[in-house]
C-alpha cells in the first residue's frame, strides 16, 4: 500500500515537474516596437527600436539591475576602479562564446571599447564616456583580464557599462554575433523581427538550467498605440512596456492584475522660453522671456494638479525640477512643485511693470502679452497640456497660441532658426546619474535648449550651474556629487529656465500568461529581466 502510494506520489511529481518544465520552457514572447530599428550596431543605437534589440541581444560587462539599481556582474565577474576614477580593471568570465561559437575574451572587450571611443564613429554611448580630451588606453592583462584607462575620471563608470554591448573582434558575422540571451534570426523589413534563444548563452538558473526560459521573441512593428492596446486585449501580444494613461484605465477596469504602475518615472514634461539673443523675436518679447519674474509668474499660473488629473488621468505627479522623485538618490527632496497661485503671479509680473488692462495683460510699453507655444503634433498628452495651459494663462490676461508642428519643423526652429517663442517638450531619462544631463545644463552646449552654444555664460546663474555640473563630474564621492547637484536643482527651481510641468508614472500592462514579471521605473520597464521571464497558464505559475 505504501509502495503504491509512493509510486503514485512519484508519478504525480514527475508529471507536475514535466508540466512545470514545459510551462517554464519554450513559447514565443510577443510585443510591439513602434518603428523599424535603424541599426544593429549596438554602439550606434539612438532610437527606441534599436535599443530594444540591443538590450535583448547584447551581452554587457556589468548590468544595472533595474530593481535594485546597482551594478551586477555579467560578462565581468569582478572589477576595480582606480586611479581616481580613470581606470577600471575587469576580470572576465571564462568559457563564454558568442552566438556563432566564436570564443569571447579580453580582445573583444578591447576591440569594442576602441570602436566605441573612436571619435569618427560619434557613438552617443561613447560620448557618455568622453569625460575629457585624449585617447582611451586598453591593456590586455590576460585572456580574461583587461584594464581600460580613460583620459579623465568618470563618475558612475561601472553603471555606464550597462549600455555597452560587447562585439566580437573576430567573428565573420560582425555585430550579428552576440553574447546576450537572444540573437536576431529573422527580420521582415517593416513588419516584424524574430529573435531566437542564443544557444551559447552563458547564464544558467540556480538549478543549472540554461537561460533564457522563453525560446523566442517576436517583435511586431506597430505604430498605432490604439491597435497595440486592442491586440493586448485579444491576447495577441504579451505586454505593453509603456502604456498610455487612458488604456491603462481600461486595462485596470477589465483585469486589474494586468495593470502595473511602478510609480513616478524618470521622465519629465516641461516648457521653456526662447532666450537666444540671435532669435528673430521682437526686443520686447526677448525682454519678457529673459526675465526670471516673468518665467516664475508663468510657472505659478499653471495648475499642475489639473494637468495631472485631466491630461494624464491622475497617472502623473507635478514636477519639480530636472530630476523626478522617482530618482530617489539624486532628487533634491527639499524642493516642492511651484504652487498654483495666480495672485502671486500677477504680483511678480507687477514687479516687471506688467499690468492688467480690461482683462488683458500688458507690459510697461503697452504691448499685449501674447505668445505662442510650439509642440510636436501627434502627442496627445502635450496637445492637451498646451490647451489647458492656454486656459490657465488666460486667467492672468495672457493670450497663448498653441501651435503643433511636425517634429523636423520643430527641431529646425529649436536648433537652427530659433524662430519660436515657447516650446513644450519632454525628456526621456534612461539614466539615473545627472551626468547624463550634462549637455543640457552646460551653457556652451548645443543642447542647452533655451539659449544654446553660449561662448560665455549669459547670466550669473548659468555660470554657477556650469561650475557646479563640472564639479560634480570631477569627483567620485557620491555625497559630494549630490551636494553639488542639489544646488543645481535649487537654481533651476529658482530661475525656471525650464518650467517643469509633470512627471508621468511608469505604466505598463502585462498578460497573466507571462510570469516572473517585476515592472520597474527604469527602462526597459517590463522585460528588464528577460532571461528569467517565462510563459505558461496561471495554474502552473512558478513563484520565485
Amino acid at each position, binding site marked *: 500500500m505504501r509502495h503504491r502510494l509512493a509510486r503514485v506520489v512519484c508519478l504525480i511529481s514527475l508529471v507536475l515537474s514535466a508540466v512545470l518544465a514545459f510551462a517554464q520552457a519554450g513559447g514565443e514572447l510577443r510585443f510591439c516596437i513602434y*518603428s*523599424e530599428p*535603424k*541599426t544593429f550596431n549596438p554602439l550606434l543605437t*539612438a*532610437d527606441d527600436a534599436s535599443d530594444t534589440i540591443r538590450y535583448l541581444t547584447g551581452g554587457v560587462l556589468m548590468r544595472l539591475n533595474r530593481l535594485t539599481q546597482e551594478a551586477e556582474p555579467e560578462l565581468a565577474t569582478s572589477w576595480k576602479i582606480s586611479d581616481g576614477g580613470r581606470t577600471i580593471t575587469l576580470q572576465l568570465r571564462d568559457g563564454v562564446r558568442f552566438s556563432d561559437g566564436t570564443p569571447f575574451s579580453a580582445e573583444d572587450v578591447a576591440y569594442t571599447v576602441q570602436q566605441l571611443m573612436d*571619435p569618427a564613429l*560619434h557613438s*552617443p*554611448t561613447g*560620448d*557618455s564616456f*568622453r569625460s575629457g580630451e585624449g585617447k582611451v588606453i586598453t591593456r590586455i592583462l590576460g585572456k580574461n583580464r583587461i584594464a581600460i584607462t580613460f583620459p579623465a575620471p568618470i563618475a558612475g563608470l561601472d553603471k555606464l557599462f550597462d549600455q555597452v554591448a560587447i562585439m566580437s573582434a573576430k567573428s565573420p558575422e560582425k555585430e550579428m554575433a552576440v553574447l546576450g540571451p537572444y540573437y536576431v534570426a529573422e527580420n*521582415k*523589413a*517593416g*513588419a516584424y523581427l524574430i529573435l531566437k534563444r542564443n544557444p551559447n548563452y552563458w547564464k544558467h538558473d540556480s538549478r543549472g538550467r540554461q537561460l533564457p526560459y522563453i525560446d523566442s521573441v517576436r517583435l*511586431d*512593428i*506597430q*505604430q*498605432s498605440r*490604439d*491597435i497595440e492596446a*486592442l*491586440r493586448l486585449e485579444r491576447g495577441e501580444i504579451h505586454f505593453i512596456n509603456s502604456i498610455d494613461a487612458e488604456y491603462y484605465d481600461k486595462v485596470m477596469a477589465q483585469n486589474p492584475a494586468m495593470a502595473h504602475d511602478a510609480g513616478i518615472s524618470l521622465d519629465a514634461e516641461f516648457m521653456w522660453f526662447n532666450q537666444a539673443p540671435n532669435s528673430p523675436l521682437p526686443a520686447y518679447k526677448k525682454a519678457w522671456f529673459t526675465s526670471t519674474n516673468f518665467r516664475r509668474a508663468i510657472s505659478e499660473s499653471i495648475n499642475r494638479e489639473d494637468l495631472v488629473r485631466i491630461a494624464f488621468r491622475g497617472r502623473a505627479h507635478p514636477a519639480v525640477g530636472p530630476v523626478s522623485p522617482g530618482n530617489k538618490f539624486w532628487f533634491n527632496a527639499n524642493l516642492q512643485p511651484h504652487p498654483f497661485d495666480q495672485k502671486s503671479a500677477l504680483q511678480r509680473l507687477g514687479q516687471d511693470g506688467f499690468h492688467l488692462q480690461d482683462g488683458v495683460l500688458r507690459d510697461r510699453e503697452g504691448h499685449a502679452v501674447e505668445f505662442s507655444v510650439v509642440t510636436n503634433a501627434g502627442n496627445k498628452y502635450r496637445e492637451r497640456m498646451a490647451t489647458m495651459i492656454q486656459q490657465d494663462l488666460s486667467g492672468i490676461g495672457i493670450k497663448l497660441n498653441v501651435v503643433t508642428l*511636425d*517634429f*523636423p*519643423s*520643430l*527641431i*529646425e*526652429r529649436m*536648433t*537652427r532658426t530659433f524662430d519660436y517663442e515657447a516650446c513644450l517638450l519632454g*525628456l526621456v531619462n534612461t539614466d539615473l546619474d545627472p551626468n*547624463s*544631463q*550634462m*549637455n*543640457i545644463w552646460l551653457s*556652451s*552646449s*548645443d*543642447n542647452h535648449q533655451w539659449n544654446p552654444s553660449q561662448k560665455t555664460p549669459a547670466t550669473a546663474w548659468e555660470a554657477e550651474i556650469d561650475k557646479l555640473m563640472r564639479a560634480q563630474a570631477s569627483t567620485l564621492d557620491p555625497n559630494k556629487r549630490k551636494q553639488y547637484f542639489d544646488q543645481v536643482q535649487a537654481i533651476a527651481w529658482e530661475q525656471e529656465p525650464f518650467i517643469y510641468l509633470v512627471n508621468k508614472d511608469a505604466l505598463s500592462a502585462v498578460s497573466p500568461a507571462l510570469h516572473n514579471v517585476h515592472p520597474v521605473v527604469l527602462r526597459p520597464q517590463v522585460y528588464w529581466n528577460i532571461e528569467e521571464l517565462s510563459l505558461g497558464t496561471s495554474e502552473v505559475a512558478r513563484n520565485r
Partner: protein
Amino acid sequence: MLRGLAKLAAKVLIVVLLGGFLGATLVRLAPGYGVDEEELDPRLNQQSIAALRQAQAPEGNLIVSYFHYLDRLLHGDLGVSRTLQRPVVELVRERLPETMKSIGLGLALGWTLGLGLAIATVMSRAWYLDLFAGLLAGLLLCLPAAVLALLFVLAQAPARLVLGLIVFPKVFRYSRNLLARSSALPHVLMARAKGLGNLRVLLWHILPTATPQLLALAGVSVSVAFTAAIPVEALCDLPGIGQLAWKAALGRDVALLINLTMIVTLVTLLANSASDLMGSKLRRAEA
C-alpha cells in the same frame, strides 16, 4: 504604332524626371530639411552634433545634386535612405510587391462594389436603393482612414481591404452619375421602348456611352488608391511603399522621396495613358 509608342515613352520619361526634380524641390525647400531627431540626444557632445549636422547638409544646390542623383541612377544606384540606413533599391524591392497587392485588391474591391452598386441603382430605378447606396458611400467617405483601420482590426479583417472601402465611394459616385446621365439619353429610351431587355440596354447602350469617362476614372482611381495607401499602410503597419513614403516624409529623406515620387508618377502616367489609349481605340471603333 512604333512612333506612337516612342512618343509615349518619351513623354513618360520627361514627366517622370520632372516629377523627381519637382518632388526633390518641394522637400528641399520645406522646413525641417537637413535636421535629425538624433541631434536632441543629450549624450552627444559638440563634435558629434556637428558631425551629424554635416552629414545632413545638402550636397550643393538643388540642380547639381539632382544631376548627381541622375548620374547614379544611370548606374543602377538609387541612393541610400537616410532614415532607414539601407539602399533604396532594397527597400523598394521589398515593399513594392506589398503595395501592389494592396492596391490591386483595393481597386478590385472598390470597383466591384462601386460599379456594381451604381449599375444596380441605375438599372433598378429604385429610390430606396439609391438612398441606401448614397448613405453607405457617404458614411465611408466621412470615416477617417484611422477609424476604418481600427474597425478592420476590431473585426479581424485583412487591413488591405480598407483601401477598397476608400476607393468605393468615389467610384460609386462618379459612375452612378455617369450611368444615370447615359440612361436618360434618347437612344436608351428608344431601346427600352422597343422592348430590349435590361442587360442588353446596359451592355449595348448605357455602358458604351459612359465608357470613356469610366476609363478615365479607372486611371484616376489608381492614383487615388496610391494616395490612400500612404495613411492606410502607415496606420495598419503594412510594410509597403506607402508606409515608406510616410516615414520618408516625416524624416525628410530626399533619396527615398525622389524615388518614390518617380515611381508614383510612372504608375499614374501608365495607368492614365492606358485608359486614354483604350478610350481612343473605342472612339475609333465607334467612328
